[in-house]
């Protein structure tokens, strides 16, 4: 029956890499195999009865497979599995650990835009866009996924090196009582309390307050 003889070494380090809920399965080639190895991928919704093949990742020679669409329901958890083929031989199916998109995704820093007056800075924060099916696909904002989402904001006076910290839930912040004609640098991080998740800090966005016209 053409049964393949499964003695090929197994794919290694089969795991999900997830950023902003874009969930991509990654693995390393079996030890000691050069070029020519092909792979198949399947996935399963935890608690649901069957493994499902991913046709777009059948007989591929790359070592990743985008399963964002298949794992987009972040109220579910998932397993994925990879099998390798070479010269009529195959490996075992090698699984990931249980993947929970809600807790296992990494969140990018927010986008920061700043404007200034003589004595204040206005900061607008934008959470990164969640993965979506395609350009026209419906986008689910991180705020919907994580209702407890907050922003930690750092504001640095470049002259005095004095730094302030703010924690805000909405996406705008006005910092008053600043010195005219002074440079300030702003950096921000996303912070979620349930489940416990936080992004890195954004790069610094610097702006100068306007000069005091009366001076």
């Amino acid at each position, binding site marked *: 029956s053409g049964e393949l003889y499964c003695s090929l070494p197994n794919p290694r380090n089969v795991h999900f890499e997830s950023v902003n809920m874009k969930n991509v399965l990654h693995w390393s080639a079996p030890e000691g195999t050069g070029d020519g190895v092909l792979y198949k991928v399947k996935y399963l919704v935890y*608690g*649901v009865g*069957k493994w499902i093949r991913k046709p777009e990742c059948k007989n591929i020679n790359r070592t990743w497979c985008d399963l964002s669409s298949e794992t987009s329901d972040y109220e*579910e958890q998932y397993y994925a599995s990879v099998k390798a083929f070479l010269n009529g031989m195959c490996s075992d199916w090698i699984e990931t*650990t249980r993947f*929970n998109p809600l807790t296992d995704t990494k969140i990018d820093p927010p986008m920061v835009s700043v404007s200034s007056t003589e004595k204040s800075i206005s900061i607008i924060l934008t959470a990164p866009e969640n993965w979506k099916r395609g350009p026209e696909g419906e986008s689910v904002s991180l705020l919907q996924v994580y209702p407890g989402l907050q922003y930690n904001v750092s504001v640095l006076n470049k002259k005095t090196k004095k730094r302030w910290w703010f924690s805000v839930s909405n996406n705008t912040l006005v910092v008053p009582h600043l010195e005219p004609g002074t440079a300030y640098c702003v950096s921000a991080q996303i912070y979620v309390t*349930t489940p*416990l998740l936080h992004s890195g800090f954004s790069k610094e966005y610097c702006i100068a307050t306007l000069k005091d016209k009366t001076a």
Partner: protein
Amino acid sequence: LTAGNKIFRFGACRVSVSATEIRSGFTAIKSNIQARDPIRTLSILSYPHSLHKVKSSDRCCVAHHLFNFYVDRVFKHCKTEDSYVNRKISSIANSFLSVKRKLGQCHEQNKCTCGQESTEKFKQILANYEGLNVTSAAIKSLGELDILLDWM
């Protein structure tokens, strides 16, 4: 409200839960515990329907049943050969015990009424649990703690 505690609202019932402590305790042992559960195609909490399908009016009753379930039927059957894992499990169990008591008080004060749907949902959870031998069922339930925490 101690640091790391969070107030959870289940209808008229408000419960302070050491959510951060529970969550970090579970995260520390999650892959160890889930690796002991080889059954992919059955979930105790999510089969056949996700907890997220529970109506808001039934949340308190389901939470009340679930915290009783974990204290009375899960943690005590989760002894492992790993003392670190066991310590984490007992720390989580202690946190669950205090939440169980608070939900129990809400239940006694009629703030946590049980409708037919919540009773049905919990019956299904028990049926899923009793479909396995007790140790497998307890380990699987413990491995699904994040499903409960995410739902809360």
